[in-house]
């Protein structure tokens, strides 16, 4: 049956086409290749990680090879969905394989994205409201090859009491697109866990917050020692909506997160907090783009990196305030600790402000653990290792301060502490 809205109908008809249809693939690829000037921008955006140098050839070879075969490479959607009062799920919690659509109660659903988009026109409409080009070569490649990932649908006005937890284990070469739809006035708490296992994954996750929607969205990344993991978030927020986003990167050879936020309606707010522990021989590269498209919005970035061994930690925080986005509040803080003299931190604030009536700030610190504080603790009988743990835990603790769901807060502290032994004492 045809959908009354012709636009939506058009998308429904081409639904599979949204996900790596041959024509889409060909057109995206030609689009990328036809924009050599953008490659310069890509290079700039990825300049410190060498992801471009190390992997672009691999990607383009893949792109060329794939564009010659008619049947898209098969990608299997893997993952689990829990709805739970306690983030460490028990046997009685709703649990579903991501391949199966799951009823989360009150009309909320989780499951394969394509199926959810077909069932929920409001969700589809929101999905279509995201601009197609990510202005990012890896996001575009994802668009060219993507298959549908997980969808989460929270209808208008629904307040989810339970925590929705998604556990994903990305397969080799995976390029998936997931979508979290949070209807007007809804409230939800999500824990999205990525544990990529192959050598390469390049995923996109869209999140849409309708008017006055509130969401607490926590992402944890723990990838294998050989994984290059690229993840793109695209968040779009309407009037009065509020998101508290936390990201914890606790492992992996090379992790790149692009967190793109568009505050599209007035009085929307976005808190973006992150903590990265970068172990020996690893790279973490976090790139935030906070676009204050509407007036009277608030954003706050707080990113902390702990670099150990011979590691590289990169933070780029962009704040864009167009000239009509008056009365904007936008803050950014990047705090970094080097545990090893061989480690390197790069932190870049990028503020582009065209409006007059704004309050913006940015600040960055890079340093070692405070030797005076270490001595103070030791002079009270606390051993060196324990003292280091206390100070690192204190450093990390600030990231958790505005994580409001108490059970989630406790669970994530434990999760991070379990993965990063140095952080057992996050207070």
């Amino acid at each position, binding site marked *: 049956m045809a959908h009354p809205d012709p636009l939506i109908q058009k998308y429904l008809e081409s639904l599979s086409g949204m996900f790596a249809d041959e024509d889409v693939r060909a057109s995206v690829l030609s689009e990328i290749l036809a924009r050599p000037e953008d490659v310069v921008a890509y290079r700039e955006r990825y300049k410190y990680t060498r992801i471009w140098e190390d992997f672009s050839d691999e990607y383009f070879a893949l792109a060329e090879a794939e564009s010659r075969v008619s049947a898209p490479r098969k990608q299997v959607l893997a993952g689990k969905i829990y709805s739970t009062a306690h983030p460490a799920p028990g046997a009685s919690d709703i649990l579903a394989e991501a391949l199966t659509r799951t009823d989360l109660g009150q009309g909320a659903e989780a499951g394969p994205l394509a199926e959810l988009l077909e069932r929920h026109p409001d969700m589809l409409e929101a999905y279509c409201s995201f601009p197609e080009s990510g202005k990012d070569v890896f996001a575009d490649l994802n668009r060219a090859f993507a298959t549908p990932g997980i969808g989460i649908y929270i209808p208008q006005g629904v307040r989810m009491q339970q925590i929705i937890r998604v556990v994903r284990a990305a397969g080799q070469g995976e390029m998936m697109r997931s979508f979290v739809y949070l209807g007007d006035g809804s409230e939800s708490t999500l824990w999205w866990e990525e544990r990529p296992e192959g050598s390469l994954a390049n995923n996109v996750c869209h999140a849409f917050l309708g008017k006055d929607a509130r969401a607490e969205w926590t992402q944890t990344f723990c990838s294998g020692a050989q994984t290059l993991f690229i993840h793109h978030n695209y968040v779009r927020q309407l009037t009065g909506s509020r998101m508290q986003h936390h990201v914890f990167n606790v492992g992996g050879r090379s992790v790149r997160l692009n967190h793109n936020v568009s505050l599209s309606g007035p009085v929307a707010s976005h808190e973006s907090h992150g903590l990265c522990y970068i172990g020996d021989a690893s790279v973490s590269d976090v790139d935030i783009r906070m676009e204050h498209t509407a007036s009277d919005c608030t954003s706050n970035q707080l990113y902390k990196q702990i670099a150990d061994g011979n590691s590289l930690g990169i933070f780029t925080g962009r704040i864009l305030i167009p000239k009509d986005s008056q009365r904007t509040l936008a803050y950014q803080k990047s705090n970094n600790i080097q545990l090893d003299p061989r480690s390197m931190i790069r932190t870049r604030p990028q503020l582009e402000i065209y409006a007059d009536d704004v309050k913006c700030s940015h600040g960055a610190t890079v340093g070692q653990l*405070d030797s*005076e*504080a270490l*001595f*103070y*603790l*030791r*002079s*009270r*009988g*606390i*051993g*060196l290792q*324990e*003292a280091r743990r*206390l*100070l690192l*835990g*204190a*450093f990390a*603790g*600030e990231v958790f301060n505005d994580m409001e769901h108490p059970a989630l807060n406790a669970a994530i502290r434990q999760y991070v502490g379990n993965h990063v032994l140095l952080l057992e*004492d996050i*207070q």
Partner: protein
Amino acid sequence: MLSIKDLHASIKDTPILRGVNLDVRPGEVHAIMGPNGSGKSTLASVLTGRDVFDVTAGEVTYRGTNLLEMSPEDRARAGIFLSFQYPVEIPGVSMANFMRLSVNETRKYRGLPPLSPAEFLKKMREQASLVELDQKLVSRSVNEGFSGGEKKRNEIFQMAMLEPLLSILDETDSGLDIDALRVVAQGVNALRSPERATVVITHYQRLLDYIVPDYVHVLYQGRIVRSGDKSLALELEARGYDWLKPENNG
């Protein structure tokens, strides 16, 4: 208890201590006075193991063991306490967690079982009231947002919690008003016993009205140039330090 023999210490090749000799026996209170830059705080730092100072000669024995070979944490566990001239603020580490770790590590070293949470809280409350430290401060991060006087009270509170054998008070009186000084001194005096010793580093005789020393030493250019009883402090107050400087004594 503590025996310092011909102690030399320097920081980045600049000698600070140039042959300090001092013996402290249980039950005694020693005051170390001296002009700015004479090495008083360096002596406190070397005794507690701050690694920015290099000990270039001499020896320090604490209860029969070579103190200089011990880590700062082991010195603390063995009963040495330094009340810092400038207590460090440690945002994000709560006083309660800090003290619980500190007390239990010290107890472990002495072969005692850890305090139960209830015992620990009781002890915290008792000792905080001893130095009139606001209970609210105890629930905050270590020294964060404390006033100068509160930080010093907090040092004495920690001392009371840890029950050290040898307390070194490094200018605990600086920045204190008269009332705070009295409270801090009361705290110190409450802990005096025949087993415990105290070394008070100060610029002013005033503190010694409250914490009465058995011995007063004058440290000048890295050496103890004069020792005496409490009357020496009064004399210093009246005459200053100049008369003690070796160049003025021929």
